[in-house]
């Protein structure tokens, strides 16, 4: 056990941070303040990600045969930390890079790989993820959106909800029911321009761009849109979620946001209050716990240690840190939600659903209790 970064990791970090410093435009923070899932950010990412791609920094962890650099997991993670230091200028494109790409490499046909991997690696395409439905969030198996074989391809009918980025997306990674049994679910790669697809955004507490309804009204998709085998969507999902195991380095953005709040408090002459200072110190401790636990997840991945609850432990630790930071903001800088500080509002609204999206808090706790502590299934 030792915690030092190797020279090559330090060099890699320098390469990434140097690139971002040089290439991010002067008005980047203005774009960022519009929100990660906004049109402005999606457009920005289509401009910026090709530059990352040219520098070999968009898909470095992908195998060489798919245009990557065969980079190791630590490098992928260092890259994620550095882009999050700037508020994630890749916008929605992290999804394609981190897990849709690798899933296609594993399950895609040669044709699918050819079209989609090139698209993702170009940095010009935005993907969205169509899993959840009004009646199927945690319980995804309850989904009702159907894809029926029509002799030539599939006809999709139904509706997805909370589909982040779908308003700007070129493609959707769609889960749909292909048979009456609960497990008969399949994955489709669907062009968002296909007639019959309608995206309806609606307002809510999270920043703009996450809360979309996506309607499928007799949408005809070709047979070639099916990923892997029909009815075998769960197997693909299990593989995919494995890639999601290494969580987002939320702590980087959280600590940066806390620094911004402290800067404001100092500027207003309000950071001498020991109660406020101690509260801020405790939030640092929470984020630092999340940091080291996230490193533990990466380490497990590199050592191919599977089935542990470290990813769940890390997720909840990070979520608790975010919640405390949001509460700190409301104690000391509540004007951030009334136009006083866009960065703080961005964090607040970006994290407002962090205990719900991508595996709700209670589901993570169930996993820790059952797999980590060996407790029987709950009642």
């Amino acid at each position, binding site marked *: *056990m*030792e*915690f*030092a*970064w*190797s020279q090559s*990791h330090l060099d890699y970090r320098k390469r990434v941070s140097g690139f971002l410093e040089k290439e991010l435009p002067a008005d980047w923070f203005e774009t960022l303040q519009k929100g990660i899932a906004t049109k402005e950010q999606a457009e920005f990412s289509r401009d910026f990600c090709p530059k990352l791609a040219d520098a070999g920094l968009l898909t470095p962890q992908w195998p060489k045969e798919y245009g990557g650099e065969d980079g190791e997991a*630590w490098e992928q993670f260092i890259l994620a930390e550095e882009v999050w230091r700037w508020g994630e200028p890749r916008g929605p494109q992290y999804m394609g890079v981190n897990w849709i790409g690798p899933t296609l490499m594993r399950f895609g046909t040669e044709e699918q790989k050819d079209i989609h991997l090139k698209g993702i690696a170009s940095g010009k395409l935005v993907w969205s993820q169509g899993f959840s439905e009004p009646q199927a969030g945690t319980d995804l198996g309850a989904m009702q959106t159907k894809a029926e074989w029509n002799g030539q391809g599939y006809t999709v009918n139904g509706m997805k909800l909370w589909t982040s980025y779908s308003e700007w997306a070129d493609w959707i990674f769609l889960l749909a029911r292909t048979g009456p049994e609960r497990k008969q679910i399949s994955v489709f790669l669907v062009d968002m321009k296909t007639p019959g697809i309608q995206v309806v955004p609606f307002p809510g507490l999270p920043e703009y761009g996450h809360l979309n309804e996506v309607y499928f009204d007799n949408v005809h998709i070709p047979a070639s849109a099916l990923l892997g085998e029909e009815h075998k969507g769960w197997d693909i999902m299990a593989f995919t979620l494995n890639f999601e195991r290494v969580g987002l380095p939320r702590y980087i953005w959280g600590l940066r946001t806390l*620094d911004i709040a*402290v800067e404001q408090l*100092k500027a207003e*002459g309000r*950071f*001498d*209050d*020991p109660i406020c*200072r*101690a*509260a*801020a*110190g*405790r939030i*640092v*401790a*929470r984020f*630092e*716990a*999340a940091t*080291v*636990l996230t*490193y*533990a997840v990466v*380490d*497990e991945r590199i*050592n191919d240690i599977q089935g542990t*609850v*470290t990813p*769940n*432990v890390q997720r*909840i*630790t990070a979520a608790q840190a975010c919640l405390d930071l949001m509460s700190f903001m409301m104690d000391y800088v509540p004007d951030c939600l009334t136009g006083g500080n866009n960065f703080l509002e961005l964090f607040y609204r970006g994290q407002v659903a962090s205990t719900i999206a991508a595996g709700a808090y*209670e589901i*993570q*706790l*169930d996993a*820790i*209790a*059952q797999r*980590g*502590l*060996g*407790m*029987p*299934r*709950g*009642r």
Partner: protein
Amino acid sequence: MQFQLDENQAAVLAGVQAILQHHQDVPGAHRRGWSYYSMELDEALSRNGYLDIGRTEGMGGVESALVVLEAAKAPVSVEIGASVLVAPHLSATEIPRPICLISGDLMKAQRYLPVARTAIIDTGDDVLVLPVDPANVEAVESIFAYPFGRFKTRPDLAGAQRLGKAAVAPLRQWARVALACEVAGAMRAAIDFTVDYTKQRKMFGSTLAAYQAVHHRLAECHLIAEGVRALALKAAWSGDESEAAWAATYAQMNIQKVLFDTHQFNGGMGVTNEHKLHFWTYRFRALQAEVGGQSGAALDTADLRWGPPGAGAIDRAAVRGAA
């Protein structure tokens, strides 16, 4: 970065565990007591060189921290954090142990004082190393699972060795690392003990462990113990003052939660001395206020990250509790 133990570390851990397996119970006569200081364990660890590990060539912070963390999982107590993690950073020559660390009011009851041969005293602007005269110490009974005692009369500090102001920061830093290791180990043991109990305790036709309300709270305890452990080991490895402050802050701010939940799910049994639980929980409870407590550690975290408070700040000495 590498989270798996290397061969050396794995060997140290296995060695300590081999000793500790003989100390998993409190001897019968002390079974219903509040605490039990195990001279047998102290001697076994000492004989095998584990208490000198902080001064042993080839052994680093991680090895020392692993020993403290592991020993803290035993229901018996033994002075180890100060000996293994603190003293080697203060003095090149060995300090007679067991060691009692004192900050705040010298005349209040102190952890380990009844067994201590040396007291290391944080006066705020100096560190004093004071030989303890056992005749001047009286034991104090308390519900904490450590031996506590106080000086009968104010000891003569003129005879103490003075390490100087420069020793204050390292003393606090390493005391925090030791504290976090002890909290991590004792929390781990209390959680495991509680999980076992919930698996055995039956009610309404099922075990207590089958209730989701129980799952969720113990899962939260688990992630706290994991976080404290990771921060403590990293702080021991790096020797970084901020990291020590994070580890202590995170440990101390979460003690209430883990103590409440572990006791809660042991029900009425958990508050009797029949049950072993208090031997762990009332150790980490006793650490809640040490080295300035969570406020002191959190304030130091803030100072280290954002600089000290400016003009108009409130006097910190009272908050930190310097002697």
